[in-house]
Each structure stands twice: as structure tokens, then as C-alpha cells.
């Protein structure tokens, strides 16, 4: 972890505050999430208090502070998906995955995120599981998808 942070930090000039977002983005892209240690490492490099950095990181939707599940469900809740019934899908997802939006299941297998818009409006409603897209989803199709992941042996 330390090695990763110092490798990324070395690419950015110290004390340059505008590098904060790119640094956090790059660390998150590799590590998957941010931790207190990471933030204090960045704080030393940019000469910014940790609470300031936390304030910035917590402001933006992109940054998360806990690891994702092995199967990360993203439900699009854009206007088009909303019109085609993504609210019902959200209910189904929460019920079958047994987690609320934004949370990770206790065994770390599933996580659920609601995204503002993925821009696939003509194929609404859409969900993405890790890197795979599923379009024109109906509640039944969704149940099948969830079941296929639940049955997966690891």
C-alpha cells in the first residue's frame, strides 16, 4: 500500500494543491478505494491537512472508502431508466442482494451502487455487473441474473 501511494505521489510535484483530485483518482483506480493511511500520505506530500483532503474526497461521488464487492452491481437511475421502471428494479436488487444501495454484503460478494446516468438511454433500463452490461432489464430478467451470480462457486 505504502509503495503504491509513494509511487503515484512521486509523479506529482509536492505542495501543488491542484494535483489532489488526479492523485486521489489514480490511487483509487489502482487500489479500489481510499483509506485513512492513504489520505495522510497524500496530506504529507501536498502539505494539506488530512481533514481538508477528507472533505474534498467525501464531496465527490467518485471516491469511496470501503472495498467493493466481488460482484459490483451498478443500476442506472437516469431519467430514461426511471421512466422504464428502474425504481422497481432497485427494490428487487435490494431485496435479493439483501443490501441497501451503496453498501456491500457481509461476505463481500455483492455491492450495489445507484448511478445517475450511464448514457445508454435508448436501451433503458440498464444495469452493469462488474464490466458486463445488461440492457432492457425486466424484474424477471434481473432475478435470473442475480441467481446466476448467487449460484457461482468461488
Amino acid at each position, binding site marked *: 500500500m505504502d509503495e503504491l501511494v509513494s509511487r503515484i505521489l512521486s509523479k506529482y510535484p509536492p505542495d501543488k494543491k491542484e494535483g489532489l483530485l488526479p492523485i486521489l483518482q489514480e490511487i483509487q483506480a489502482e487500489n479500489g478505494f481510499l483509506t485513512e493511511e492513504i489520505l495522510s500520505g497524500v496530506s504529507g506530500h501536498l502539505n494539506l491537512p488530512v481533514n481538508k483532503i477528507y472533505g474534498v474526497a467525501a464531496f465527490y461521488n467518485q471516491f469511496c472508502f470501503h472495498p467493493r464487492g466481488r460482484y459490483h452491481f451498478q443500476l442506472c437511475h437516469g431519467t*430514461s431508466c426511471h*421512466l422504464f421502471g428502474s425504481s422497481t428494479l432497485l427494490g428487487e436488487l435490494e431485496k435479493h442482494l439483501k443490501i441497501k444501495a451503496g453498501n456491500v454484503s457481509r461476505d463481500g460478494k455483492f455491492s450495489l451502487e445507484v448511478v445517475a446516468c450511464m448514457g445508454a438511454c435508448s436501451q433503458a433500463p*440498464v444495469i452493469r455487473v462488474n464490466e458486463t452490461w445488461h440492457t432492457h432489464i425486466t424484474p424477471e430478467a434481473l432475478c435470473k441474473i442475480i441467481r446466476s451470480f448467487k449460484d457461482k462457486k468461488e
Partner: protein
Amino acid sequence: MTSSGAIQIKEFLIEKVVKNYSGLFDKATASTLAQIKREKVSRPVIYIGMGTCGLIAGADKTFKAVEKYLHEKKIDGELVSVGCLGLCTAEPMMDVQLPGKTRISFQHATEEKVEDMLNAVFHHTLLHENAIGQYRMPLTEEWPGLTYIDQLPFFALQRRNILRNTGIISPLDINDYLARGGYRSLFKTVLNYTPEKVCEIVDQSGLRGRGGGGYPTGKKWSMALNAGSDQKYLICNADESDPGAFMERALLEGDPHRVVEGIAIAAYAIGASKAYIYIRSEYNHGLLVLQTALQQAREYGFLGENIFGSGVNISILIRQGAGAFICGEETALIASLEGKRGTPSEKPPYPAEKGLFGHPTIVNNVETIANIPSILENGPAWFKSIGTSGNTGTKIYSLTGKGKYSGVIEIALGTKLSDIVYSIAGGVKNGKKLKAVQLGGPSGVCIPPSQLETEIGFESLQEIGASLSFGGMIILDEDTCMVNLSKYFMEFLQKESCGKCIPCREGTKRMLEILEGVTRRPKEENSHETLERFKGMVQLENLAAVIRDTSLCGLGKNAPNPVLSSLKWFREEYEEHIFDRICRAGECHNLRTFYIDVDLCTGCNVCHKKCPENAIIGSVKMPHFIIEQKCTGCGICFDSCKFSAIFFK
């Protein structure tokens, strides 16, 4: 292609095309150019639409299937990935161009269907049913019995200027753009015009900013040019985060060099040597395309130091947003670029005087920037000829919702909304009735059918409470509940409010609470809440007025828009929700009570099996019943009944 061949093409394009102001070529040049533009091909070329929407629909699988097909049949063909043509309902799209024949487009080219389609084309036999049209290509023979793409209803009324290359050229190949006159404007501008002159030309063209209040772009640039500072910045705002708007993404992914050229010209015009592109973090594919485009532009010497030997330096950096809706506002965007929380600040001072790191900064959105190259190439008079006086040029929209066709469109200003809804989108699908057109997403407005004769333009849209900066156009049919939609938008805005000013932070929360009360399940309500619900409508209007008048930035000022506009045009729906406790569209789940018509029910047992709450009882071949106490009103039984035996009140 060998590397020496690539260098030859590069030199040919720079010397003969970019540096040729007139755009008139001798015969030999024109012939070589036609080959580079693939107007004349010597081997089959297959184009696959690989924009984000195409990829979601499975274009990458199509690509692999075509690759395999060519390999197996031993066909020496070229496979080109292009951007999105805009007709999203037809994705994934594949175009095929045989030597001597025009280029034809296929819709729904999924991996299973590709073989059939290609077999038909390569044997010159009857065209596949999925062929939707052919391109106009004067040098080649046309396919008989196939309409031209520009005659399809979706394209016929469009006026494609900034989108003219998207879906047609390869976004990953700078030569494709150069062969169509790309970067000629930059060359002409940097070597012939002073920055003052560029501002003047843009001002004469009447171009007004497409992202916000519609301020004349030329005037805005002059302000920054005349601001005395040794360091200035240009920012291209590609943080398009309205749910339902993706037209700028289509442009960036389909024709990135047009945006890069526009940025370079704009930076030169205001005297900035450094420009930023602030791109939305979700646009992974767009980011990749843009990075490639910048790399190529640098290699060709169109960016960097001393471009075209003129002594002008321009560098462009990409910054990724981090998923905050508010960062579409220019001062919030600047704060975000400085590494701070993306909260807006008060204007004045305007960014043109004091912006990024305290230096004069111009923020233009992608669409405004993309107009620049063609204005400088064809002159302000040409640009003025598009649209109406005072509203010159075109506007791009992402058209989605319940229309027959959806996708990204570009129309000349002055086009009527009804033309877009009924001609381009082809009306409402499944024969339903049009309820409204939602323009602009969460900070936008609902426009009822009675107002559809409105022309697209800055002032005309303002009259009905909308704005030209709204890029998402969503067609709503009779099954849409306006109250539920307003609640959805309010939820979004409430979540995305940055929290800096109180009217927006607290006001949106209160408005959401009122809307939640209005759509609450009658059984779960206590007496106090009933009173609150009755007061809701008056409070909504009062609150909306306060938020609109006292918020700091555009997000807050526009936050009450969806509620105000739907209250204005669809007041009876609110009243039904509040007083009669019914939702005529049946979208508000909490207000629905389902019943089974015993005469129609055949006892097929499907609803019983599908009901997630086990609220339906009944044995096979006997009429079923719904236990009201258990029913959550999800409507799954309603959707699954094949005999229309389930109804709601």
C-alpha cells in the same frame, strides 16, 4: 501500412490539404484525397459504430464476429471503428462499403446476425432486412431500392454541422479528419488573424454560448483577451452530468479532433497558452478517444510549442471530473480544477476577469467549442445563414424516452419542437398519447403538447421557462406520472446540492419531503401528515419561488423548475394525488390498489407465482384474490397477467 507510407500521407495531408486555404484541389490531389476519405475503396471496408452506446449494445462482440468472418472467408477487408451516428435505437450499427459501391448501413448488427448480413452483401444479392440506408457517394454506384440515409425520417430534418463527421469517420485516426478539411482553420487563424480579429469574426457570426445563459461567445472572449494578465486559461467544459444528456459524449467520441481544433483556436483568441478539458469521470471511452486525439495532434505539430512556426504555444491537458453534478457550473468547475470542493462562488468577479488560480479564464462547453472550426473555415456570414436572426447556428440534443426513435440529433435553431417530436423521433411509440416533452433533465422543464409549436431559440425557449442550454430532450407518454417525475428530479437535485447556500440545500430537501408526503401510502399516514399534504401545494409554490430567487448558482436557481413547470401545466395531477389519492398513470406505487376481475381471471396461477410478497391467493383454474394488507403495489402481477384480469384504482 508501412511507416514510410504513413509519413507520406501525413506530409501530403499537411502540405496539400491543411495549408490549402481555398479547399480547391487539382485532379491528382483530389483523387488521393478520395482514397483517404474512403470515397473510393479498393477493398471492402466494414465500419462498426463503437461509441459508448454501441459498446453497451454489444458492438465489441460484433467487431470480433466480423473479424472472424473476414478471416474465415479469407476476405482482404478493412475494419474501421467509428463513433456513434446518433441513431441509438439502431445500435449496434455496422456499415459495409464494397469497391465501386456506396456505403450501406445496417441496424441491430448483433454478433449472431453479422454473418447473414455480410453473406448477403458480399454476394450482391438481396439486401438484408436490417439494411436501413445508403450514403450519398457520387463516385460510386448506388444500391438499387435502398433509401439514402439523409432521407430517413430521423435524419431528414436534421442540419448536421458539428455532428457531420460523427459515426462516419474514424475518431482514432487524425488523417480522416484532416482529409475533410480538419485543422485548416487553425492553420489559417494562427498565421493570418490577430486574436482580436478572431474574436471579431466569432462575434459577427452571432455564436452564443450553448452551455449557460447564451452570452455571445465573441464578446466573452474579448473580455478575457483585454484582461491584462500574462497567464490566461481556456477550459472546455465536458462535464455533462444531466441524467439523460449524452450528446457531447457522442461528439467527443465521434469527432474528437473537431473539439481539439476548436480549443486550440479559442485559446489563441484569448491569448491563453494552456487549456484544460474537464471531462466527466464516467466517460471512460470518451477519455480514451480524447487522449489518442491529443497525442496525434501533438505528433502532427498542431499542439505544443511554436505551432506552424508562428511562435504560438498551445498545450491542452485533460482533467477528469469526480462525479459531482454541480461541477458543470463554471465557478464550481474552476474550484474543482484547483483541487478544492466543487462549490460555486459568487459572480462577479466573472471568471473572464479572475478565474482559475486567479487568472482570466474562459469556460466554454464542448458544443460551443465544436462550432468554432467551421465558423473560421466558412466565415461568419455562412454561420449566420443557419438558424434565425439572433439565434444562429445549430443545437445538439439527446433525444430519449418514449419516442419511436432515440439518439443524438442536431437541428438548426428555429426548428419547431413539434418537428423534433413527430418527425425526427417519429412520435410516441406503441401508439400511446404524448403527455409532455421534458427538456433539460433535473433543472429543466416539462413542456405540454399545447406548447410544442415553440421554436428552438434562446428567447423563444425562455418564454416557456426553458433554456437553450438544456440538452436532454425526453419524450413522455401518458403512462408517465408528472408528480413522480418531479419527485425523481428533486431526489437527484437534493443529493447533488453542494450545500453551500441554504435555500438550495434546505429548500430542495423540504420540497422533496412535500412530494414524498403527496405520494405516501394512504394507510401509513397519520392525521398530522394529512394536514401537511393538504398544505403541500401552496408550500411547494412558495418554497420554489424562494429557492429560485435566493440561490447562489444556476443549479439552485433552476432546481424548482421541474416542479414549477409541472405545477403550471399539470396541476390537476397534483390535485388528484393530494386530494383524491390516485395516480392516473399508475406510476406512484403507493397510491395503487390492485384488484382481480373474477370474470376475467382464468386461474393460470402466473400472478401467484410472480408475486414477491405472496399477496395473491387462489388455486389453479379458480379465480385468484389479492390480500390488500400484504400488497405493496409493485405491479408485477399487473404486468404479467395475460388476460388483463388485474386492474388498479
